[in-house]
């Protein structure tokens, strides 16, 4: 029962009605909690115990940390919480990866080891809710938030269904204060919720799924059957697809939360307008990048320990970022790739600091345009790593992406692919104007109806699963 299924659109109105009809904080939150657990159980029934276990451990740990008389006691409970969350995450997500690599290593050493015949099914949203739990107990430890005394409140913070499966990674400090009294839904929230839900569905079902069917899936499956121009379009389309898929989910989550009166943090800020790799990571999956900054980069020392320590910390953070996404070598290399780019950018920045002409050049439009193009090229190259089906096919695609045969025949790319990629670019431009240009209600309503018509009539027959559901 994901957002783009009929079952969800029966579930949602039912929960909304029950929630808004219920009186009193306790009833409302109970309804929302039961609905969230039902949502989880629908998608991942065998693993309901995982989220219940995480919730229980972190809830108890939070209280114990706050009540502990000594710092040692507080540290002990914090360690328990972090170890439990990371332990579950590692057990479910990295066991198979570790086993496979151990097998390969053993074979290199001449041992006769059989391939893995088992697999580990990942519990729904485990990467997200374990990070939420860790951030909560750390924040309690640091004194940034008070421990939650109500079990229902804490369980709802972890399991709130709009963001349960694929984030954003909501922090206690962002969510818990909103729970003090059941937030009333304002007219503005109702309208904004509609905006975000429709926009998210459009991004996911119309843009991402169509790009996948039209070019990404066929070209990535067999790059040898296509030419360099097709490869380039496929890479670009993949960058557009993964953005629309993930930000589409985030938008729907934000919109749904508004219909319950809650505000979730935005997860994307027009990432393909970034003019540097650090800028890209300040715009892409914000809830994860800020989480890694606050709970990993800063504790490691951040940039306070000299250049080498900073580079080391950046690499650790980005390798963790890559592995958080997936326990595979391509994701690990993706993390390394971004870590190296971040380090190079930092070195470049430091090298140019104080050079009088550099600041002037970097302020020009021409430089910004060049920086934007270079950033797009580099980040898309990184994304190819995580979509390729094998290293060989990745190499074929990478050659084309880096190639200079710009005038190669367009091959078999349908005309709709450039149109959809252009639509994503247009979305970024319009997004950049938000706040400066406010559309009148009637125009917005017309646009929403247009989206509904496009989704119903021209959307894919069957929606594909959200990419980030497997993380």
């Amino acid at each position, binding site marked *: 029962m994901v957002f783009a299924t009929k079952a969800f659109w029966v579930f949602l109105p039912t929960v909304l009605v029950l929630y808004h009809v219920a009186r009193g904080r306790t009833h409302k939150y109970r309804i929302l909690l039961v609905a969230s657990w039902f949502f989880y159980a629908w998608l991942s029934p065998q693993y309901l115990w995982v989220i219940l276990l995480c919730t229980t451990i972190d809830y108890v740990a939070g209280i114990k940390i706050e009540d502990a008389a000594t710092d040692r006691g507080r540290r002990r409970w914090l360690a328990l919480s972090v170890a439990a969350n990371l332990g579950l995450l590692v057990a479910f997500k990295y066991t198979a990866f570790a086993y496979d690599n151990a097998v390969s290593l053993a074979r290199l050493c001449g041992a006769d080891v059989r391939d893995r015949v088992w697999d580990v099914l990942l519990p729904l949203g485990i990467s997200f809710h374990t990070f939420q739990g860790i951030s909560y107990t750390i924040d309690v430890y640091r004194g940034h938030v008070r421990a939650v005394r109500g079990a229902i409140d804490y369980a709802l913070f972890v399991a709130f269904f709009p963001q349960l499966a694929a984030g954003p990674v909501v922090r206690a400090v962002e969510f818990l204060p909103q729970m003090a009294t059941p937030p009333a839904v304002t007219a503005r929230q109702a309208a904004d919720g509609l905006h975000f839900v429709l926009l998210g569905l459009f991004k996911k079902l119309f843009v991402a799924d169509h790009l996948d069917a039209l070019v990404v899936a066929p070209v990535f499956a067999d790059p040898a059957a296509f030419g360099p121009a097709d490869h380039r379009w496929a890479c670009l389309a993949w960058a557009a697809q993964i953005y629309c898929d993930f930000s589409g989910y985030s938008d729907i989550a934000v919109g749904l939360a508004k219909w319950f009166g809650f505000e979730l943090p935005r997860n994307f800020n027009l990432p393909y307008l970034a003019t540097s790799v650090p800028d890209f990571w300040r715009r892409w999956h914000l809830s994860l990048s800020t989480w890694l900054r606050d709970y990993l980069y800063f504790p490691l020392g951040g940039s306070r320990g000299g250049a080498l320590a900073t580079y080391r910390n950046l690499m650790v953070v980005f390798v963790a970022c890559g592995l958080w996404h997936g326990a595979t070598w391509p994701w690990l290399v993706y993390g390394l790739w971004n870590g190296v780019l971040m380090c190079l950018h930092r070195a470049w920045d430091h090298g140019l600091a104080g050079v009088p002409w550099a600041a002037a050049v970097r302020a020009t439009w021409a430089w910004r345009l060049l920086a934007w193009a270079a950033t797009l090229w580099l980040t898309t190259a990184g994304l190819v790593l995580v979509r390729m089906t094998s290293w060989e096919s990745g190499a074929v695609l990478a050659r084309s992406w880096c190639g200079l045969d710009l005038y190669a025949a367009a091959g078999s790319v*349908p005309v709709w692919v450039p149109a959809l990629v252009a639509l994503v670019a247009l979305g970024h431009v319009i997004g950049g104007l938000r706040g400066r240009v406010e559309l009148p209600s009637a125009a917005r309503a017309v646009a929403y*109806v247009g989206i509904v018509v496009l989704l119903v009539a*021209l959307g894919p027959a069957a929606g594909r699963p959200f990419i980030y559901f497997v993380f």
Partner: protein
Amino acid sequence: MPGVNSEPVAATRLDPPPAVRVAVVAAPERREGFLRRNRTPVTFAVLLVVTDATVGRFATVWDRHSPDDYAARVIACAREPRDLVFVGGSPLAEGIAPDRVAGVVRGGRELKSVYAVGLSGATTSDVYHAVLRACPAPPRVLVYGLTATDLNDARHEPHGPHSLMTWGDLAGWVRLRPESAEWVTRHFVQGRAGRVSNLFHYRHGIRMWAACEAEAVLPGSSPETVREADELRERAELLRTGSGYAPARGIAAGRYDAAKAAGFAPPGFPFLEKYRTGSHLKYLHKLIDWCAAGGTELILLDVPVTADLEARYAAAFAEYRGRLADLERDRGVRVMRVTRETAGLTDAAFGDVIHLNRAGAARLSDRVRTELAR
């Protein structure tokens, strides 16, 4: 406000400066009405209803680009009183060309107006409901072309409950076949719910229309969708104006013998898996009753299929033929047994493992004509 703007009164030097108090009293905020506060969602809802109604106004356009196969055939058949109606699942839809049978003389009377209500994927339960809708005036002769798949109780096909049934039919089904009450209710309600919105109901037709329009502006933009739209438009036209013979292009032109020679090995046939009979059969009894009540002569035509299929599912075909023999004996229904040999149907006459191709359909139709004339 009194006093605020008035001149200060005469004051001595020692007096403190007059205190001028300015109080800004904000007017109580005017609370906007519900509609004004929620103008975007409300406008959206209103426009959505208007759009949906507008889509409904162009229903014929969408229907021509993507007909509801069952509904279109039923409506076309019901348009005029028929002398002879063929009804059945896809083996009949692909295997009988009514124009070749029209004009046959049976019992001294010519059967002029002929139509084939061939419902791809239909079971006997669906066929019964199709007959009720397609024949407001009972025809003189009703030929139900069936094969083993029609009676398989392991099969549940949602198209019938979606397109052919009324609330009364649903109640009848629940009484007659209680073991599938939940299934039929769910699919019937889904079908009804799908018709609440014109946009949703005609979404495929709109998609096909849009592909054709896009093709006109940007040739080659959606070749596969246009091909599909093309076939559907042709089919819609045939169903609307013809006699119900609108074969699928792939099957009509297909050759099972050639496929076999090329190494094609037919996979399992899911419509004959887990074969059991009895529940759908109840609707065949109802069909016999309906025909008897209306004075319609009912003939059960055992539609031939490939020898490979019969050999692979020999037990299923034996059970099915046993049921036909029971009906013939107990209810006095005439069963027309047209074998492959008598109709001259080799593998070359089949488009796939169960459906006749165009040439095969012509042969079977001619054979049926001969049998009817006897």
